[in-house]
C-alpha cells in the first residue's frame, strides 16, 4: 500500500518530524510517576519476578568471581538489564518460545531453570544438555521453551519470525519473543526478520535491549537515528519504547505486545532503554571505552533496587526476606558449582553424535581411530584416556542422570 497524497514542494523529511517517547511507570524510589498506572501484577507474580532478578544477580556475581579464580573459562553478566529481561519474560505465557541473544539468563531463571542446570552448562559436564560443546552461557531448555543460545549475532531474529509463523499455523495461541542487543540490530538478519514478520503477520515480539554499547562501540557509532525504535516505521510495525530499568513498564508493554501478537497477528518491536552495568564479558574491560561517571549514573538507576523499593511500599517484601533469600541463593550457587565442577565431561562418543540424527559410517570410523590413538598416547590425552578406561570411567559416573531433553 502506498500513499497517494501529493505535494508540489521538493521537501525532504529529515527524521526529526517525530520522536518516540519512553514509556515509564516506576520511579527509582519505588513510587509511580505522576499519571502512570500500575499494571495488573499480583503479589505472587511480582515476587516470582523479583526472586528471578535476585537469583540472576547472585549467579552473575558469583560466576564472574569463579571465572576470575580460573574455575570457569568465560562468563557474561545480565547485570543492570534484569528488569528488561525478566519483566518481559514474565508478561508471556510460560509456553511461549524465548529466543535469546546471550545476556538473558534472567528469563531462564524466571522460567525455573535450576542452578544445577546453569552450572552443568557453565562447566560443560556430562549433564550439560548441550553436551559440553558450547562455551559457557550457551544455555537451552526444551522443557522451558528456551532456544539454545547461538553465538553468531542476530541469526535468531529471522528464526524467531519463522518459529512464530509455525506457532500461528499450529493455532495454539502462542507466540515467540526474541531478544537482541542494539548492536545486533545492525545485522542484515534483523532487517529480514522484521520485514518478513509484518508481511506474513507473524506473532512475534522483537525485544531490543538497547544497553548503549556493543562491546566497546557506543550506540552513536552504531546508528545515527534516535535508537532502534524508529525502524519499526519502515515495516509498519507496532512499536513502543520503554524504560528498560522499570520492571512495571516493561511488564505492561510486553503484556500488551503479546495481545497484539497473539490476538491480531501483529508483530511488535519493543525497545528497552537500559545499560550494561558490567563488562561486556569476562574477557572485557570497559574502562578503556567509557567513564566511571557514566557507569555511576546508571548504577543509580539499578532496576533491582527500584523494584525492591516498590515491593516494600506495597508491603510485599522486607529486609529479612531479602537477607534470607540472598543467603540461600549464595549458598545454593556455591553448592551447585562444586557439584558441577566435579562431574566428568560428556563421554568421548558424544564428539560424533548429533552431527546428524544418526552417526554416519565415516564419523564412526573417525571415532574408532581416535580411540585407538588415545589408547596409544594416553599421556597426551589424560581426560580422553580416563574416559576410555572402564574402571575409571565408571568411578567418574557414579551419579548417572539422564541428561537429555533439557530437563524433560
Amino acid at each position, binding site marked *: 500500500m502506498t500513499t497517494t497524497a501529493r505535494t508540489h514542494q521538493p521537501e525532504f523529511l529529515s527524521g526529526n518530524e517525530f520522536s518516540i517517547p519512553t514509556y515509564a511507570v516506576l520511579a527509582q524510589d519505588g513510587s509511580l510517576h505522576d499519571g502512570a498506572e500500575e499494571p495488573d501484577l499480583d503479589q505472587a507474580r511480582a515476587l516470582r519476578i523479583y526472586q528471578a532478578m535476585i537469583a540472576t544477580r547472585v549467579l552473575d556475581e558469583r560466576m564472574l568471581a569463579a571465572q576470575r579464580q580460573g574455575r570457569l573459562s568465560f562468563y557474561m553478566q545480565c547485570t543492570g538489564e534484569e528488569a528488561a529481561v525478566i519483566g518481559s519474560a514474565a508478561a508471556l505465557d510460560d509456553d511461549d518460545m524465548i529466543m535469546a541473544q546471550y545476556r538473558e539468563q534472567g528469563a531462564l531463571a524466571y522460567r525455573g531453570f535450576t542452578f544445577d542446570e546453569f552450572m552443568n552448562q557453565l562447566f560443560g559436564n556430562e549433564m550439560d544438555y548441550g553436551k559440553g560443546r558450547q562455551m559457557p552461557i550457551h544455555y*537451552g531448555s526444551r522443557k522451558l521453551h528456551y532456544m539454545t543460545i547461538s553465538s553468531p549475532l542476530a541469526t535468531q531474529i*529471522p*528464526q524467531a519470525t519463522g518459529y*512464530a509463523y509455525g506457532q500461528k499455523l499450529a493455532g495454539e495461541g502462542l507466540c515467540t519473543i526474541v531478544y537482541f542487543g542494539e548492536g545486533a540490530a545492525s545485522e542484515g*538478519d534483523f532487517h529480514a526478520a522484521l520485514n518478513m514478520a509484518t*508481511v506474513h503477520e507473524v506473532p512475534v515480539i522483537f525485544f531490543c535491549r538497547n544497553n548503549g554499547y556493543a562491546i566497546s562501540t557506543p550506540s552513536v557509532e552504531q546508528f545515527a537515528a534516535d535508537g532502534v525504535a524508529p525502524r519499526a516505521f519502515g515495516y509498519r510495525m507496532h512499536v513502543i519504547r520503554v524504560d528498560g530499568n522499570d520492571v512495571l513498564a516493561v511488564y505492561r508493554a510486553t503484556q500488551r505486545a503479546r495481545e497484539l501478537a497473539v490476538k491480531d497477528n501483529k508483530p511488535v518491536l519493543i525497545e528497552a532503554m537500559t545499560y550494561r552495568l558490567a563488562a561486556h564479558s569476562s574477557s572485557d574491560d570497559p574502562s578503556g571505552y567509557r567513564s566511571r561517571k557514566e557507569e555511576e549514573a546508571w548504577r543509580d538507576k539499578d532496576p533491582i533496587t527500584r523494584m525492591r523499593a516498590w515491593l516494600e511500599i506495597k508491603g510485599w517484601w522486607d529486609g529479612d526476606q531479602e537477607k534470607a533469600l540472598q543467603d540461600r541463593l549464595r549458598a545454593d550457587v556455591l553448592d551447585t558449582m562444586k557439584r558441577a565442577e566435579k562431574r566428568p565431561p560428556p563421554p568421548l562418543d558424544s564428539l560424533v553424535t548429533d552431527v546428524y540424527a544418526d552417526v554416519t559410517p565415516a564419523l564412526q570410523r573417525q571415532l574408532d581411530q581416535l580411540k585407538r590413538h588415545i589408547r596409544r598416547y594416553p599421556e597426551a590425552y589424560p581426560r580422553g584416556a580416563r574416559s576410555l578406561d572402564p574402571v575409571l570411567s565408571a568411578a567418574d559416573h557414579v551419579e548417572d542422570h539422564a541428561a537429555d531433553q533439557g530437563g524433560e
Partner: protein
Amino acid sequence: MATINMLQAINQALDIAMAEDERVLCFGEDVGGFGGVFRATSHLQEKYGKARCFNTPLVEQGIIGFANGLAAQGSVPVAEIQFADYIFPAFDQIVNETAKFRYRSGDLFNVGGLTIRAPYGGGISGGLYHSQSPEAYFAHTPGIKIVVPRNPYEAKGLLLAAIRDPDPVLFFEPKRLYRASVGEVPEEDYQLPIGEAEITKEGSDITLVGWGAQMDVIDKAVELAEKDGISCEVIDLRSILPWDEDTIVESVLKTGRLLITHEAPRTGGFAAEISATIQERCFLYLESPIERVTALQTPATLTRDNQQNPKHPKIPETSNAPRNY
C-alpha cells in the same frame, strides 16, 4: 508410468509431500501464485493455500533464517533459493545455523525438517551468476546433507527422501535438465536413499564418477571411450554429503583407475575430496593417477561457456592418459 520432465517430477514430489503432511510448507521468491521462475511449485498455492505455499520478500538470509526457525518449531519447510548463485547471502544461516543446530544444543532442538532447493549448474548461457555449482562450498560443513539428482526419476525419489530425512538437506537441481531431461516416473510415492551412490553402468577398465547433469556428459564420453575398447564403470554419486565412499572404493579396487568430473572449478572442488580419500583407501590398487575433469579455475563466463566446462571429449582424453601409465 508417465513420461515427464524433471520440473514435473519435482512438482509431483512437492505435491505428494504437502498432501501427506500438513506441516510441509513451500516458500521462496516468486514461489507462490506464480509457481517459481522455473515453475517447480506450480499450482501448489491453489491446492494448499497461501499459508502453506507463498512468496517471501527478496532476502535469502531471511528465507533460510525463517526456515530454520520453522523447522526448529516442528514444521517441515521446503525453502527455494531462486538460483544457487544467490544462496550465498544465506551462507551464514546454513553453515553456522542449519548445520550446527542439533550439535550445539545436544539435540534439544534440530532443524532436521528443513530442505533447501536451488536450481543449479551451468549450460543455460548464464554467465557468472546463473551457472554456479556451489556444492563444494557446503560439503566442508558437517551437519548438512547434499543431494543432486541426474534425471526426473531420481529427482522425485530423492526429493521425497530429502523432505522426510531427519537431517537438513540441500537439494541442488541441475537446471539445464529441468526441461531437457525426460523420463518415466511412477506417479505414486517412492523414495531413493540419501547417502548411497548408484552404479549406472558396470565396467572393468576405469571408474567414472559424477553427479547431476554431468552424468549425461559422462555417458557421451563413455560412448567415445568404448569405441576405443575401454570398458567403463559409471557411478552417480547422488549424495555429496555424506558420500558413499565404499561404493567407489569397491569399484576402484576392481578397475584400478578413477576419473571424477564436476562442473565447478577445480581447486577445492568435491573431486579433490573423492580423490584424496580414494588414494588413501585404494593406494596399492591404483594403476594410474586419479584424474579430475572440471571447469577451469575461473568464474563462469558466457561466451566461452563451452570451452570452459568439462565437456565429454575431455573425459576420454584424460582417461586415455592414465592408460598409458
